[in-house]
């Protein structure tokens, strides 16, 4: 009897979470899958009629000459047509050069930005794990970029990278007008913003390594590199995997910075998959194709996440 009541209570406690997941995760997921295999067209049938204009008490409103005023009432009938087109949108993905380019841009971004953030994050964490002048102050300053909105960061760096009279204009580097430099600029901004996050987590992990262990290792190890390679790095590995996973999932969805900094250009040099999906769905209103793109992205992220979780489980084992 007690067990039965416990089961009921468990269901009650799980209900909000279940509703949340069903409403905000499962439903949009299923709905976007449904859209991706349909062509959606909307239009409106309209008729208009003149009706008397009434005041708050229901009396006719009169014009300057004392005639009753009329107003136009619009009768609207919204028509949405959903045509099943099967896997056409998914086939388009394979042939679309814009998709190929967006995958290339996203891949380069992920492969350069994320490892750079991890390496810099570890180096900074090692540095700040030592006794340092004004350490607390510098640590606080280091963390500031995390709190900025990526969109605002994009606009900020637009002014910094401005080639004619911007603060870095004297370098003569075509930060935004050259396709390769533009992608590099996007990567640079992302590194600037997210390295502090990696640094913060690694610093916490470093400070979690027991002092006794470190002291013993220092006595055993002949060099600092040996200490790092044999003790610190293995101890940090689970944290690195988690940070890598979080940053990968985030980086693959790259949108805000190119949106604000380069508009995806020049050409499509900084147009990521998310940006392309946004453009397709909300500028061209080709919702089915945009959903197919998003699904493609989702599948890629899921594969990566699964692989990493497997790796994580193995490393813990």
């Amino acid at each position, binding site marked *: 009897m007690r067990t039965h009541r416990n089961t009921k209570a468990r269901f009650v406690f799980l209900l909000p979470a279940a509703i949340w997941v069903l409403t905000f995760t499962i439903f949009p997921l299923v709905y976007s899958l449904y859209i991706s295999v349909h062509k959606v067209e909307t*239009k409106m049938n309209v008729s208009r009629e003149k009706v008397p204009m009434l005041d708050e008490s229901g009396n006719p409103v009169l014009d300057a000459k004392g005639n009753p005023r009329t107003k136009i009432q*619009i009768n609207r009938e919204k028509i949405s047509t959903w045509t099943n087109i099967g896997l056409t949108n998914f086939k388009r993905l394979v042939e679309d050069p814009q998709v190929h380019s967006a995958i290339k841009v996203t891949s380069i971004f992920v492969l350069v930005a994320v490892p750079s953030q991890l390496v810099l994050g570890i180096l900074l964490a090692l540095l700040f794990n030592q006794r340092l002048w004004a350490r607390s102050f510098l640590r606080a300053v280091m963390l500031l970029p995390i709190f900025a909105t990526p969109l605002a960061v994009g606009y900020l760096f637009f002014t910094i990278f401005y080639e004619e009279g911007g603060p870095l204009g004297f370098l003569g580097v075509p930060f935004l007008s050259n396709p390769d430099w533009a992608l590099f600029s996007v990567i640079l901004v992302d590194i600037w913003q997210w390295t502090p996050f990696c640094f913060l987590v690694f610093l916490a992990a470093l400070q979690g390594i027991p002092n006794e262990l470190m002291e013993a290792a220092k006595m055993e190890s002949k060099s600092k590199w040996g200490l790092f390679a044999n003790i610190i790095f293995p101890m940090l590995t689970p944290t690195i995997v988690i940070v890598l996973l979080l940053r990968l999932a985030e980086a693959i969805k790259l949108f805000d910075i190119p949106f604000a900094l380069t508009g995806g250009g020049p050409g499509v*040099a900084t147009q990521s998959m998310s940006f392309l999906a946004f453009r397709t769905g909300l500028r061209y209103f080709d919702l089915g194709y945009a959903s197919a793109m998003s699904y493609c992205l989702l599948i890629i992220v899921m594969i990566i996440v699964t692989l990493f979780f497997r790796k994580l489980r193995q490393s813990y084992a």
Partner: protein
Amino acid sequence: MKLFKSLGLFVSACLTCGIATAADHHVKWHDDGKVDLVMEDGTTISTTREELGSLFGPDQKPFDGVSISVTVNSGGPKGGISGPLYSFRPIWEELTGGKLEIVELPFGEHYTKMMLDLRNGTGQYDAFMVGAFWYGDIVPNGYAFPIDDFMTTGEYPQWTYDSMPQSLKTLHTWEGVGYGVLNDGDGQVLYYRRDALANPEWRAQFKKEYGYSMPVPPKTWQQMLDISNFFNGKNWDSNDPDPDSGTVLHLKVGEQGHYHFQSLSASFAITPGPELDQYHNVYWFDPTNMKPLINSPGHVAALEFLQELHKTGPSAQVGWSLGEAWDYFLRGKSVFVFSWGDVGSLCQDTSRSKIQGVCASSILPSSDTYYDHETKKFVKTTNPVKVGNTTGGSWHGVISNYSANPEATYSLLSLMAIKPASIWLAQNGWTGVDPGFTYQFLEPQGEAGLGDYLDAGWSEADVKDYLKAYYETFFADTFLPYLRIPGSFEYWDILDKNLSATMSGEISAKQALDNTAKTWEQITDRLGRDQQLGYYQSAIGYK
């Protein structure tokens, strides 16, 4: 305590009276039928009761308590297109008793927000200050409110389509029905530095280098490129000690860079002829089958030419929007810019411009070689035809069919369209409203007097050139057809991305336009070729 209370009451009463007095000052009704519309900064526009329409009067508040919202490209209270809404808001609110909410949206987001509102049926906005190329997506789908009935009642502020050249009138109507309320007339013209091109030393040096006298203004694009090349890298402007450029362009992707290509390529890619048929006066698609013409040899030649022209300007312009490019020209850094009417009037704004009085304009040059779509050959000509354009958005108000108050909304838009308001808007560069209507052109072509413009702070030489350039642009015999079909935004966005890739050196001109044509074919097939063909034929007047 009592004293403080009384003092407080007195101060509040004074403030209330002050506010009321200020609020009542935006419209002054005179006994002789004249009405002064007074803006926040004291600028007065004079009109008459008749011109304002029968709905308005000293004791009338026809839309008391009604709130409307209008979307516009963001620019702020002194920004292009958005600024006039702020200027006219207090006047309209006082005239009607209504409330106006101005919703500013970034250029790149405006279309998206509008379409989301219309497609989802949210009905959040009563009107949109649209670009004419959006018509294909809003009118056939039943989202736009026709205004012809309002125009004939005599109740609303009076204006007419007859004051527009046919080229602009077409952009405000759809299949003969009026939807757009007169506001802005967009078209691109050439701006050049009068002083540099007239300088005898530069002229002599140019003749020596190029073997012919520098034509002012250049009649062909090829001449313009020579002049642009000649001045590029020389310090011909005394405003700073640095070298200056030839031509400045605004080429940022997702902004308005593709318009440069449209205007420039027209005379390369259009085969002139007395009538519009399958081969003549067409630019975008073959009007018999919707096959793209955008990768025709004429278009490719034009894009290769634009690449050459780009080399005579700052390389950073690949990432520049309008503001940066215009500012570069206004600071005296380039000999040429070809852009919208805003530049001409901004030249007169000495807070931004160092070139008032030397800012000359002309209709865009033409190419001395064009592609003949019938013979499939290039034709070299010594007398190229002038090709007009309405390139741009001609940004103006269209009422949403979801509006609960189309009457109130129309009263606002039409108030900004009355003749004295329209003249004032065109005379002030910051408004973003460019000239295009008969009463804005100087006599004898139009009705405006030179004095009006001189009073508004224009240089005489500049304004004469400017209005002549626009008159010739809008009334040209050969014209760049305007793309107004469903999906125009997408067609242009694809073109824009490919052009940007070319200008940044990623791909060749041919490759860019071939890519564009291929994607356009897919868009046409997706949207329905027959439907698109019908709309296209109707939009360009193909029979």
